[in-house]
Structures are given as C-alpha cells and as structure tokens.
C-alpha cells in the first residue's frame, strides 16, 4: 500500500509543483498574490473540454489551442486590469483585492457558461496499467508525470539560456535596476503572466484527466499551490516545485493516517506552522520578517 500512496503522491505532487511554479513566476515579477490564477487554471480545462468534446477537434490540437488561449487570457488580465491599476501606485494589497474580485467573477462566469456539475474530458483515463513493486500506475499517469517534467525542463532552459529568461530573472531580482539597464519591467511582467498562465494551463489539463472538471477546481488547486509556494519559499521557483511535491506527497500519505475529509485542514495547519517557525520557507532567500 505504501508504494501506491507514494506513486499517487508523486503524480499529484508533480502537477501541483507545476502549478506552484507557474504561480511563483508571476509572483516574482508582479510582486502580488495573483489569486485570479485559479480562474485561469479552470479556464484551460474548460477550453480543452470545449474544443475536444463540443467541437470535436483532435486531442492534441485542443490542448495546444487551450494552452495558448490561456496564455493570452493571463496576458490580457495583466495588461487590461492589473497594469492600469498598478500604474496608479496601488499597493500590493489593493492588487490582491482586485485579483480576488477577478477570481470570484471569472469562476462564476465559467460556472454559468458550462454548468456547475462535474465534467470529464473525452478520453479513457483507465487504460492499461503497469505495476511497480506493489503499486499500479496507468499510462495516463506516466504520461502526466512525463509532461510535467518535460514542461519544467523547458521552463528551466528558458529561464537559464534565453534573453527573455534573463530579463525575467533580472526583474525578479531587482525591478528598478532592471529598468536602468534597459529591461522594461511591465513588459517582462506581462510575459511572466503569459508564461505562468500557459504552465497553469498544462497543469490543469493534466489534472482534469485524473479528476474531471468543476468550476471550483482552480480555486482548490491554487490554494494548495499557494501553500506550496509559501512553504517552499516565496520567490523561489525550485522552492515552489519542492513545496508542490511535498504537499502532494503529504496529502496522499496522510490518507493512511487520518480521514480524508481532514486532509485539507492538515495542509493549512502545516502552512501556519511554517509561517510561525520558518516564514521564509524551505528555499526562500531573505526572511520576510521585519
């Protein structure tokens, strides 16, 4: 049984790590908690549903189309809403408030457009399974882990070796200094929104194979991702990944110890514990204490 729980934890953890990393990329440059990321995540899954189930497009085409549209949606949110408000010197608290408003509005618009009941993607998630030790793992789950890993490798390469990746890291490090050397923080932040939204889209499509679609899926996933980001260390992408993997593992291993209904509460107890004892998280840089 331990093998199975570990593997389930790994699957959940890699999808959550991807979402946490996408949230961290946006936070690094924008410097506020973008809660509407939850709705972006939900949007990706529903777009895939729309393209594949309603319009009957081939599967790969629907995923590619919905991930690109999601990136566009994230970019639009920043350019049309956050940026004008941020330009008026709004505090990060007002931007957080705006993101909450956007999240609530978008989540309910999605619910009105598609209905609140559980939906599934037109795909057989069951399929053939292989066994590792005493655990069973399906090919869909293997593909899902592989996709998460591949996306993360591409992301790491992008941040490390490309010009835009360098600009992104410079803005994350010090936005004013970046401006002095000719990097425009607003453009880079807009790019971070597009990139982060695309990654959230991938994570969302992978998760919706496993658990289906509901309008609140993004909210639940994002809460876990925010916890992952905080315990991993706010402002650290490897930290976010590690946090995501950790939370995914804990949620699945805890099944053996406590009733499933209490697992979400356990995660937030861990969050409060980290805030109390190690507020800069596992890999965070400077303590945020003042």
């Amino acid at each position: 049984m331990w093998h199975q729980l570990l593997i389930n934890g790994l699957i959940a953890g890699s999808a959550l790590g991807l979402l946490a990393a996408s949230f961290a990329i946006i936070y690094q440059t924008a410097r506020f908690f973008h809660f509407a990321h939850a709705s972006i995540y939900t949007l990706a899954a529903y777009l895939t549903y729309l393209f594949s189930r309603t319009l009957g497009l081939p599967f790969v085409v629907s995923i590619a189309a919905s991930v690109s549209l999601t990136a566009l949606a994230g970019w639009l949110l920043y350019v049309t809403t956050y940026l004008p408000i941020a330009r008026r010197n709004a505090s990060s608290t007002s931007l957080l408030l705006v993101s909450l408003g956007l999240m609530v509005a978008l989540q309910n618009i999605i619910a009105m457009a598609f209905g609140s009941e559980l939906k599934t993607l037109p795909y057989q998630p069951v399929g053939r399974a292989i066994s590792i030790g005493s655990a069973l793992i399906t090919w869909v789950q293997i593909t899902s882990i592989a996709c998460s890993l591949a996306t993360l490798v591409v992301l790491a390469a992008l941040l490390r070796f490309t010009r835009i990746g360098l600009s992104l890291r410079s803005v994350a490090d010090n936005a004013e200094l970046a401006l002095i050397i000719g990097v425009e923080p607003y453009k880079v932040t807009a790019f971070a929104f597009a990139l982060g939204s695309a990654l959230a889209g991938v994570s969302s499509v992978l998760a919706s194979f496993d658990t289906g679609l509901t309008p609140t899926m993004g909210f639940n996933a994002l809460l876990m991702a925010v916890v992952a980001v905080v315990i991993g260390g706010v402002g650290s992408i490897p930290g976010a990944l590690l946090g995501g993997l950790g939370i995914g593992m804990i949620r699945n291993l805890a099944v053996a110890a406590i009733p499933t209904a209490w697992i979400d509460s356990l995660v937030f107890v861990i969050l409060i514990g980290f805030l109390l004892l190690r507020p800069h998280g596992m890999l965070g840089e400077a303590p945020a204490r003042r």
Partner: protein
Amino acid sequence: MAVYLLHLLTLGCILAIAVVSLQLLVSTTGLLSVAHAVFLGIGAYAAGIGVTLWHFTAIGEIGLAIVCASIISLMVSVPSLRLREDYFAISTFGLQMIASGVLLNWMPVTNGPLGIGGIGQLSIGGFSVKSSYPFFLLVLFICSVAVVIAESINASRYGLILRAIRSDELFAQSLGKRTLWFKVKIVALSAVLTSIAGVLYAHFLTYIDPSSFSLMDSVQVLSMVVIGGTRPLGAVAGTMILVLLPEALRFLGLPAALAANIRQVLYGVLIVVVVAFRPRGIFSFHERTAA
C-alpha cells in the same frame, strides 16, 4: 412587503456589524481578512450549540462567542503579523479552509452539513425577543454601538498609533511601540465584534449550516467593505447596497442557480471597479510597498 423589507433590513444590519468590524481592521491597519465569515460562523455556532445543548441565554452565548473568536483570531494573527502584510491574507485563507473543513466534518459538535436547527429566540435576562420588530430594533442598536466603537477607535490615540504602524512600522517601533501587540489586539477586536453579529445571525435564521460561512461569504463581507469606503457609516451603506441590490435580481425571474452566480459576479466586478476607479475613497493606504 413590509415583512420582507424588515427581513432584509435586519439581515443588512447584522451583516453591517461584521462589515464595520472588518472595515475597522482594514482602515486602521491595511490588513485584508478573507475569513470574516469564519468569525460570523463562530458566533453563530456558539449561539446554536449554546442554546440547543446547554440552554444558554444571551450573555452565555456572547461570552462563548467572544472567547472562541479571540482565541482563533490569535492563532491567525500572531504567526502572520510578524511578516509582510500579504501573509495575513494568506493565513486568513488558511483559516477559512480549516474552518469550512471543521464545520463540515466535526459531526459530534457541528452536526456537519446538516447544520443546527431550532435555535429559537434570543433571551436576555428572562425576556425573550419574540417578534421580528423588537429583534430588528435590538440588531439596529448593536449595529449603532459597533459604529460608535469603530468611530471612537479611529479618533483615539490607539487608532493613531495603528495608522502610524500602517504607514511605517519600523518607525513606529523606533518610537518604542510594540507594533505586533497593537495589531494583534485590533484583529481580535474585529473578530470578536463579528462573532457577536454571528450570534444575532443564528437567532435571526434559527437554522445554521456550514454553507453560510464559506469563502464566498467572506469575500462578500470584504466586497461590502470595499464598496463602503473608509468610514464606518460608509460600511453600513455599502452593506445595505449589496444586500438590497441582488434582491432586484429576484424580480427578473432568473433561475435560482443562475441568480447565485450572477450575484457573485456582481460582487467580484464591483471590487475590481471600485479599486480601479475610486481607490482613494476606498483605501487610503496607497503608498507603494517598496518594490
């Protein structure tokens, strides 16, 4: 029609107590709580459990609510207030999720999703508040007391210190102020006032379940604060607008499920629009945090 209006006004005044308390917290400290529905819930469950199990009167219920609300507010405020202000919002998110989980799953105490029914009238010193009109007057009175408390804190030395902490915490510390303690106290006060609104809420509805104290309800309280602006009376006005406005949807003959969604969209959009176009009227903490 008169009964219906009285119902709405009573509900509005109860919510306004919670909104005034959150507004007090936001305007003095700039801290955002996304868990005020939890404190409302603590009061409501304290009343529900107190009345149905132990036959408490008003004093007992309010006492229980105050004790529970202040302990739980400390659990959130002490860890997070040492950090940047964003972390307070994150912790209240955590509290909201834990609380929803506890209300739904702690069957022996909260009766889970079934909720607690038959709460009955509020009884104060042998008298019970029977009909809805005296109850409305009582609620209106408590709401006015909340407004007076908020106004006097705003005008007091304590309010001044809190605003000083908000604009420059390090400087306030250099003047010898124990800033953490000042902030923890105002969070607790805000939570306690809200839990008293929760007690009234339980007696008003006579039936409570976890669905009335969800994240969406917390966001609703927050959006009322945003609409209402920086003064306590503004908060009352903001509450009344957001209680009465969605009622207009009722007369459009929309299906109930859709109406709930439209109401939420309305709250969300209002938050964005108000912060975007009337920011100074709503929040006075518009200095940019050091980027």
